[in-house]
């Protein structure tokens, strides 16, 4: 057995163990912390499968942002979870459904898939030169399947609309509350003063390098969102009201810019979301820049949650 195989087997066993721990945890908070560790280990697994783009996204979104969302949810329902457990039949049905989905997925990927597995990787690589991009994953996201990417960003905005809609009528358009009421600790303020400049450079690098290397708008946006959330939690800046026109524009700017480029493609390159010859890379980077900002704003707003206070006059 080679050391690489031993490492992979240990990693797979660890992922399974953490997954079991997440399900078996009695408290919501422990389950969420296990889930974050699970996401980080899963991103290591993606690295081993030589999918660094997926690994970065899994670490930033799967473990980072989703973890934060779940931590917030667990903190909110913390006092209420002492209630009665759901009926046994319901738990059994949920478990059975999960087992069915998992075995169905395992059957399709492990048993039914022909050997070698069908792949579009060679044609994707063959056309890469025409896009001017160096990273085939970015080419898939913004050239071959650009419509999927555009709609994905629209879904993100819709998700934020759903969260904002949870605000009661009297605070509609108000300000979301982030973190506890107590004044922030001096250490947290220090972190919020020193880390964001570094984080912003890393976020911009992440988006910029995405054209040719692993990275991109989603990963860069997630880091940018994290930096903003640190500043907000340390109360160095106020969360803008959800009715703030600038915030709403920031959330919409990326998808709108991407859609505008798409419609321009109709006039200039004969198809929706097609790029004029030779202009593919600059247009993609422009769209990604807008999307990075919008993703950052949307993710941060998702974590901050619905408005809980009336907007300041």
């Amino acid at each position, binding site marked *: 057995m080679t050391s690489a195989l031993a490492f992979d087997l240990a990693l797979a066993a660890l992922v399974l163990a953490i997954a079991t721990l997440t399900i078996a945890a009695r408290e919501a908070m422990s389950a969420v912390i296990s889930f974050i560790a699970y996401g980080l280990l899963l991103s290591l697994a993606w690295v081993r499968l030589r999918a660094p783009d997926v690994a970065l996204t899994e670490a930033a979104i799967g473990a980072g942002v989703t973890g934060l969302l779940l931590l917030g949810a667990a903190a909110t329902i913390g006092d209420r979870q002492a209630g009665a457990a759901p009926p046994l039949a319901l738990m059994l049905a949920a478990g059975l459904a999960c087992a069915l989905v998992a075995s169905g997925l395992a059957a399709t990927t492990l048993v039914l898939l022909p050997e070698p597995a069908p792949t579009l990787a060679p044609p994707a690589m063959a056309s890469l030169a025409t896009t001017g991009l160096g990273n085939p994953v970015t080419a898939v996201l913004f050239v071959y399947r650009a419509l999927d990417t555009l709609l994905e960003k629209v879904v993100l905005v819709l998700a934020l609309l759903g969260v904002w809609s949870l605000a009661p009528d009297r605070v509609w358009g108000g300000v979301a509350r982030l973190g506890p009421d107590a004044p922030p600790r001096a*250490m*947290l303020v*220090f*972190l919020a003063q*020193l*880390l964001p400049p570094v984080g912003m450079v890393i976020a911009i690098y992440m988006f910029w390098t995405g054209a040719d290397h692993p990275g991109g708008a989603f990963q860069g946006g997630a880091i940018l969102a994290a930096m903003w959330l640190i500043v907000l939690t340390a109360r160095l800046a106020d969360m803008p009201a959800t009715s703030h026109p600038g915030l709403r524009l920031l959330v919409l700017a990326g998808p709108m810019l991407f859609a505008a480029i798409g419609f321009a493609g109709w006039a200039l390159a004969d198809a929706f979301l097609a790029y004029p010859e030779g202009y593919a890379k600059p247009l993609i980077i422009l769209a990604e820049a807008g999307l990075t900002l919008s993703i950052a704003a949307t993710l941060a707003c998702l974590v901050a949650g619905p408005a809980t206070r009336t907007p300041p006059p």
Partner: protein
Amino acid sequence: MSTAIALVTVVAVSAGSIFFLAGTIGLIRFPDAPCRLHALTKADNLGLGLIVLGLLPQVGTLAEALKLVCIWLLVLFSGAIVTQLIAATSRHK
């Protein structure tokens, strides 16, 4: 020469791994939050520092080396502050 460089890597990365192992054992075995944090920071600071030190001779370019050092500094910085925050929170409980 290359043998000497490889030796530096093996020694430093092994030493770093020992810090991680010791830190993990401490995290599991120590009785309360400050002790566990004490164990954890050794793994983060020294363990990762030694691993980065061991990997430095293996990188191809100066930019890659700088990235590795940046990763270590970022972990040092955030680790030190988050440790303080956890310790302060656990004391006020």
